[in-house]
């Protein structure tokens, strides 16, 4: 492979000078920083809109949170309401709201469940007890979910393409720094942090895992 010329030192005038090399270094550095900090997060998450733009504020004016987000007798938490529960009021339009129209046309009439996208959905390995937090520790919904009850519109839902997790789990800051948007982040360490503060212990594994 080697040739005679390889054995000779390359004359200095034929070599790139130090600052040129440094510029190339900088180009590589900056390009990777930009792609890593800006392009990557955008690529990693896909964005979806909720099937129906739900107005929490309008509903809260007329009823309690627990009318839709209630505890079942067995202690489990119902989460988002089912079609049947929505239907109990919205069998027929109650307003001129286009989203309500859409809801009735596409879901009530077709008897199809609304595929709500759950911002704080935990993965299957997690047992999250709403009862322990809401009933046991008297916490308010907004502590974790933000002031969603006062919102008039549902924000977009971002999903991690690799993990399938909602972006709310990791948080919107890539470094998980700063004040969390929308109430809180929901990774295990976020739970642990609060538990440590409130109960003096991060908790045992089986407290939250199944």
């Amino acid at each position, binding site marked *: 492979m080697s040739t005679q010329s390889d054995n000779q030192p390359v004359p200095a*005038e*034929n*070599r*790139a*000078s130090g600052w*040129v*090399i*440094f510029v*190339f*270094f*900088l*180009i*590589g*550095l*900056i*390009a*990777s*920083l930009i*792609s*890593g*900090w800006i392009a*990557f*997060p955008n690529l*990693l998450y896909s964005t979806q809109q909720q099937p129906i733009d739900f107005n929490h504020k309008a509903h809260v004016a007329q009823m309690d949170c627990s009318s839709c987000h209630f505890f*079942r007798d*067995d202690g*489990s938490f*119902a*989460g988002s309401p089912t079609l049947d529960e929505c239907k109990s009021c919205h069998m027929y339009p109650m307003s001129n709201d286009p989203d309500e129209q859409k809801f009735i046309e596409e879901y009530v009439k077709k008897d199809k469940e609304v595929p709500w996208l759950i911002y704080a959905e935990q*993965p*299957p*390995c997690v047992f999250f007890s709403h009862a322990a937090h809401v009933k046991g520790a008297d916490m308010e919904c907004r502590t974790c979910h933000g002031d969603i009850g006062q919102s008039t519109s549902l924000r977009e839902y971002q999903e*991690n393409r*690799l*993990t*399938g*997790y909602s972006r709310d789990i990791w948080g919107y800051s*890539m*470094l998980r720094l700063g004040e969390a948007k929308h109430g809180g982040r929901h990774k295990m360490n976020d739970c642990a942090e609060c538990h440590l503060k409130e109960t003096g212990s991060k908790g045992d594994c089986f407290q939250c895992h199944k």
Partner: protein
Amino acid sequence: MKIDRRCFLSLVIGGAVGTTLTPVPWKLTDDIAIWTQNWPWTPSPEKGPSVYKKSVCTLCNGGCGINVRTVKGQAKKIEGQADYPVNRGSLCPMGISATQHLYGPSRIQSPMKRTGERGQGKWEKISWAEAISTVSEKLAELRSRKKPHTVACIAESDRGTVPYLLQRFLTAYGSPNFIRTPSSFDAQEQALYLTQGRHGTIGYDLENAGFILSFGSALMDAWGTAGQMLSASADFKQKNKLIQVEPRLSDTAALASQWVAAKPGTEAALALGLAHVIVRDNLYNKEFVDNYAFGFEDWEDENGTVHQGCKSLLKQYPPKKVAGITGIDKGTIESLARKFARAKRPVAICGRGSGMVPGGLDEALAVFALNALVGNINQPGGVTAIPEPDYWPEMQRDKTASNGMQQPRVDGAESDRFPNTRYLLNRVPEAINSAKGESPIQALLVAGGNPLYTMADTETAKKAFDKIPFIASFSTYMDETAQYADILLPNHHFLERFEDVPTPAGTPTRVIGLTRPVVEPRHDTRHIGDTLINIAGSLGGFIENAFPWENYEAFLKQTLTKQWDSLEKQGYWVDPEFMPPAWEKAFQTPSGKYEFYPSQRSKASGKDADALPGFRQVELPGDPEKMPLTLMPYASARIAGGAVANPPFMTKTVDTDVIKDGAVFVEINPQTAKKHGLSEGDAAVLKTPAGKARVRIHLFEGLMPGLVAMPAGLGHTAFSDYIAGKGANVNALLTDVTDPGSGLNAGWGIRASLVKA
């Protein structure tokens, strides 16, 4: 400005340094790990509210009440229904794993028509309309040729609305050939009829019994209603109340306070020997025997002939002789008899193993005699006859039907030869195979029972089935028999359908349970009741008129109007009026008493000796020279021995010394093994007059020397990949041994040879 490869290198280094300062490697590492925690191909069950639904399991004839947890319309878990009067919350492993059958790959998903050879497994999906018209055209054709009696129906049960509809259909159509698959209760219920004059199911009040003498009944392994037996067993051990007579240390024997290892097939002799001691020592219940029994003493009939009574007969069974027959020592017999007679509320039960084989009538009569001697008939902790359902609507039939109904039955049941026997499926293959010309069955409807798996000598049965030109199966699963059919009209799974479950055999109260849909039907299946109504509808005429209901559900509700409220609310109905009748009113025999001497039986044969129970050694098929061992099937609660095969969960519980790598282990005593040059784990060939199978050897001290014990319920060839191909089917190695008195299969084993492979 010169650019060389060092510049490029520098660019790459800069990029690498930069990348480590971005979230890319770190976040990706984490996300990839999270990806492995949520692999898209690993299922994640959907959450939702739990809804519990009550129903009744019909996987066997046990009929246990179940409570099914459902989430979003999917059945999740089956648990025992705590207040159900039969099983009281207990459930056998089969019942618990029924969801595996519901959602499993062995379901028949739509009506199908055979396209290849029989049993080849080639099917074509057809519509329900086509399926029903195919069946009704075939039936109409036979009827037009005045051969309605060549249609037969095999069912797993003859009680409840579905078997009734099948019977009603055959009656309206004109065939007497409704045949129920055999069980040990065949012999017991015939004995019940002969001694008490009542048709009905037999009830053993084991929970209240103070002392249970079991003649080889696998109480812990699926005998009767498994859930009920297991639940009752909780205090068998504590209260020292179970004695098990059996040549193998079964799970029941293991739990018993005493295991009496009698030679197999000598149970009747032991029962008579015990009765001998009880009578000899005057330990019997004189009040009952003197006032409410007939044929205990010798008696003289209207013609002046003196007949031998039970007491005289028993003289022939002194302990010494019985000891010789049974291999149990005299002292044990004496003490056992005394213990039994002196116990509070003793009861003797029979029906060998899990009760798949009827056994001889003499054995049942001998055990019944023991019960009668201690006077436990219709007493707490004793034996009771539970009347059969009697709420059936009227019907009319045409002449063709009437003529057809007068034809003799194919199986010879209710004939002059076997007047008291209701069904003799075991005799059907012989009837077909020996018939000259065309098969006496031209069309066969199989509504459960999976006879091509459960019948003894399955090869011969298959040969007979080959001669039947038309076989339709209503099976829910692709079982061995469905696989051999021409057309499939799949029934809903029991978790998808309505059905009533009347008092299961063995239960001492009168109960009806309600099986009801827990989930929506998953496939294009149809309730067998509806299918029958459809077929009747397309046959027209009187047949159609006999089925005036819109659908099965309507018929069910109409039939059980009185019980419906309770059924719907609690899932069961217990007859509030049912009380075991007092002795004065209990017996509907010609003598009006409990008949030690069953006169109905003597009428059939005309011979005294045949009427009284006696011990007659059953000659097992096979040449004792060439086949020095005796093969006996054994039951295990972990292996479903019946029509429906083990779901995978149950097979998972079966241990490595029962089945390994597709081969079944047969148990033999180490002493026998030594004699035959066999050792633990050896591969061997087990040969019987019916066939042979490759097996492996498991040495078990708890088995009587000279015997080979093989688990029943393995060796399925159909259902699914998860079920088929595990071991060998013991039924295929057995043959029918006709009991001369009843025609029932009295075979408890077969001669066999075991040679190292």
